C-alpha cells in the first residue's frame, strides 16, 4: 500500500465485542503517555505558531498585512523612512505570495478534479489489462520526495533540460491578467495584460510542480467508493434511456459527492502548503513566492514575527481543513447507517 492513507476520524462501530476491563494503573499510564506525546508534538507546536505571530501584539500581526503609513506632513529621518518603506515592501511581497498561492490553487484544483473523476471512472467502470498498473502509477507521487518532484521538471524544461530550448523560449499569457479592451482594436474584446517567457522560474512551473504532488488526492478518494458502489445504478439509468453524461451528472456524481469534497479538501491543503517542489522550480525569485516560500524568506531575514504571521494563516487553514474532514466523516457515517432501510414486517 503506497502513499499516505486517506485519514478518517474513526469512530467505534458495534462490531467489536467489549474488551475485558483494563488494569486501571496501566490505563492511566498509557493515556498519560499518549496525551503527553500528542501534546508535545502537535498541540504545543500549533499553539506556538499563534503565540509567535502575536509576539508583537495584535498591531504587529495586522502590520504584516497592513503596514502603518507615515503620518501626513511629518518630517522623517532616513531611518524612519526606510522603516516605513521596508514595512510596505514586505507587506506587498506578502500579499503577492497570498495571491500566488491562491491563483496556483485556482488552476491546479479544477484540473485535478477533472483528472480524479476521469481516472476513477476509467478504473472502476471498466476492466482492462493494466488497470492495477494504472492505479499504482496514480499513487506514484506519494513515493517521490518533493524535491525530486521539482527536480524532474527542471530536468525536463530547464535551461539545460531535455526540452530546455523549446521551454525557455516559450511565451505564455498570464490567465489572471485577462481584461476588457473593447472593440476598438478588432473583434475580440479581451486581451491578456501580461505574458511570461520560459517555464522554469515562472508561475507555470509552480503550477506543474503543484499538480505533480497533488493530483492523486481526488482520484484516491473517489476510487474505493466507486469501486464498492458498483455500476448497477448507472446500468439502470442507461437502460432507461439516459445518455452517458446525464447518468454521470445525475446518478454517479451525487453518490460520490462527499468523497469528492474530501479529496478536494485534501488536494487544496496540499496545494497551499507544498514547499519542496515549488522551491526548486521557483528560482527564489520574490515574484514567484507562494506563502510557504515567503515564510522561508522572512525566516531567513530574521523577521520571525512576520514569518509566523504568514504561517498562522496557513495554520488556520489547516485547522479548517481538519474541521471539514471531521464533519464529512460524521456525515458519511450517518449516511451509512440510514441506508439500511426498514424491514418489510
Amino acid at each position, binding site marked *: 500500500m503506497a502513499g499516505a492513507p486517506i485519514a478518517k476520524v474513526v469512530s467505534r462501530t458495534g462490531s467489536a465485542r467489549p474488551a475485558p476491563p483494563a488494569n486501571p494503573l496501566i490505563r492511566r499510564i498509557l493515556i498519560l503517555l499518549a496525551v503527553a506525546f500528542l501534546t508535545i508534538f502537535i498541540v504545543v507546536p500549533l499553539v506556538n505558531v499563534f503565540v509567535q505571530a502575536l509576539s508583537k501584539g495584535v498591531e504587529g500581526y495586522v502590520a504584516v498585512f497592513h503596514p502603518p503609513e507615515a503620518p501626513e506632513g511629518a518630517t522623517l529621518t532616513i531611518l524612519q523612512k526606510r522603516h516605513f518603506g521596508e514595512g510596505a515592501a514586505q507587506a506587498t511581497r506578502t500579499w503577492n505570495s497570498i495571491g500566488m498561492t491562491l491563483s496556483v490553487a485556482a488552476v491546479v484544483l479544477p484540473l485535478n478534479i477533472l483528472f480524479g473523476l476521469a481516472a476513477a471512472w476509467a478504473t472502476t467502470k471498466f476492466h482492462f489489462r493494466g488497470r492495477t498498473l494504472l492505479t499504482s502509477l496514480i499513487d506514484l507521487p506519494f513515493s517521490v520526495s518533493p524535491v525530486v518532484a521539482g527536480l524532474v521538471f527542471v530536468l525536463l524544461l530547464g535551461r539545460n533540460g531535455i526540452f530546455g530550448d523549446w521551454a525557455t523560449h516559450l511565451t505564455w499569457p498570464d490567465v489572471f491578467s485577462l481584461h476588457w479592451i473593447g472593440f476598438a482594436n478588432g473583434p475580440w474584446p479581451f486581451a491578456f495584460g501580461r505574458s511570461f517567457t520560459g517555464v522554469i522560474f515562472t508561475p507555470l512551473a509552480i503550477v506543474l510542480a503543484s499538480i505533480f504532488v497533488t493530483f492523486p488526492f481526488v482520484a484516491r478518494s473517489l476510487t474505493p467508493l466507486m469501486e464498492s458502489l458498483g455500476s*448497477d445504478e448507472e446500468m*439502470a439509468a*442507461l*437502460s*432507461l*434511456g*439516459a445518455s452517458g453524461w446525464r447518468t454521470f451528472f445525475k446518478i454517479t456524481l451525487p453518490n460520490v459527492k462527499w468523497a469528492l469534497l474530501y479529496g478536494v479538501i485534501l488536494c487544496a491543503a496540499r496545494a497551499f502548503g507544498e514547499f519542496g517542489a515549488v522551491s526548486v522550480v521557483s528560482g527564489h525569485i520574490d515574484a514567484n513566492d507562494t506563502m510557504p516560500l515567503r515564510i522561508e524568506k522572512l525566516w531567513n531575514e530574521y523577521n520571525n514575527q512576520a514569518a509566523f504571521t504568514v504561517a498562522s494563516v496557513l495554520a488556520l487553514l489547516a485547522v479548517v481543513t481538519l474541521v471539514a474532514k471531521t464533519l464529512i466523516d460524521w456525515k458519511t457515517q450517518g449516511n451509512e447507517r*440510514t*441506508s439500511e432501510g426498514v424491514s*418489510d414486517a
Partner: protein
Amino acid sequence: MTIEIRNISKSYGPSLVLRNVDLKINSGELVALLGPSGSGKTTLLRVIAGMEQADAGSGPVLFDGVDVSGVDLGKRRIGFVFQHYALFKHMSVFENIAFGLRAKPRRERPDEAHIQEKVHSLLDLIQLRNLAHRFPSQLSGGQRQRVALARALAVEPRVLLLDEPFGALDATVRRELRRWLRRLHDTIHVTTIFVTHDQEEALEVSDRVAVMNAGRIEQLASPQEVYEKPANAFVFKFLGNYNLFHGRSGGGSFVRPHDIKIFRNAESAGPDAQPGMVTHIGFGGPVVKVELESDDKTHVDVELPAQAFHDLNLRRGEKVWFALRGQHEFPLDYSI
C-alpha cells in the same frame, strides 16, 4: 413483442457460459429462466438486455424480427429490474419513477403534467401512492422492488427483464410479491422474462419455463409439462426432491417422494412392491416425511399426506412394503 435469439454463445475468458442457445418467446408471455448458479441464466438475460455482448459468430437477438444486437442498451426500450433494486439513492420514489421520462430527448419528452399523471398512475398500480416522496433508504425491500418495477414500466418498455427480482427478500415477502407480479402481468401483458433459481417461484408464476444448465436450455415448456414430463434427469432433479433407483444397463428410475405408496402387507402393495424398514419419521404439518431403508440398503424418501400416515399408523423400525406409482426413466449421465 416477440423475442427470438439464435445460436448465442458467450464466454468469460476461458469458461463458456452460454453454449449455442436458441430461444423463442411469444408476445405477452411470462417466461422464467430457471437454473442453478453458473447455468448462464443471468448472462442470457443480460445479453437480451444489451448489457453483455455475445461472442463473435453468435446469431442475432431479434425483437419483433429486427436484429438488435448492435443497438445500445438505452435504445432497446427494455425495462430491467435488478436483484438489488439499483434505485437512485438520492432521488425520491417519484423522481426514480419519473427518471426515464425526464431523460428522454427534448423532442420526445412529455410535458410536466403528463409526467405527473403517468407517475401517479404507476404509483397506484404498485399501491405506493402515499410514499411518493420517500427516499429508497426509508422503504422496505418489498417496497423498493415495486418501485424498481414501476420505474422500469414508466418508459413503456417492449419487454420486462427481471434478474432474480425477489432474491434479496424474505420468504413471506417473496411469495406475496410473486403473486403480485403474476397479477400485474395479467393486467398489463408486457412480454416478461425473469431469472430465478427457485423452482417453486418459476412454476407458480410463469407461462413457460426454460430450465437451464451449464449454458444450455435443457427444456422449454409449460410448468406442468416440465414437472410431469421432464426431458432429462437434470430437469427432473432440479424441480424437486427425488429418489433414484438404479436399474440394469446403466439407467435409473427417478421417483418423487409423493409417488411412492407405503403398505402394511405385500398383497395390497401389488406385484412390484419392495420390502423396507421405517428408519425415520418427520412431521411437517400437512405432509409427513417417512424415511425407509430397502432390503438392499437403499435410502428411500417418502412423503404422504398426514391423513394417510395416520391411517397406516407407522412407527420407527416397522417392516413395511412400498411401491412406485409413477417413475421416470433416464439414462444416468455421471457428468451432471
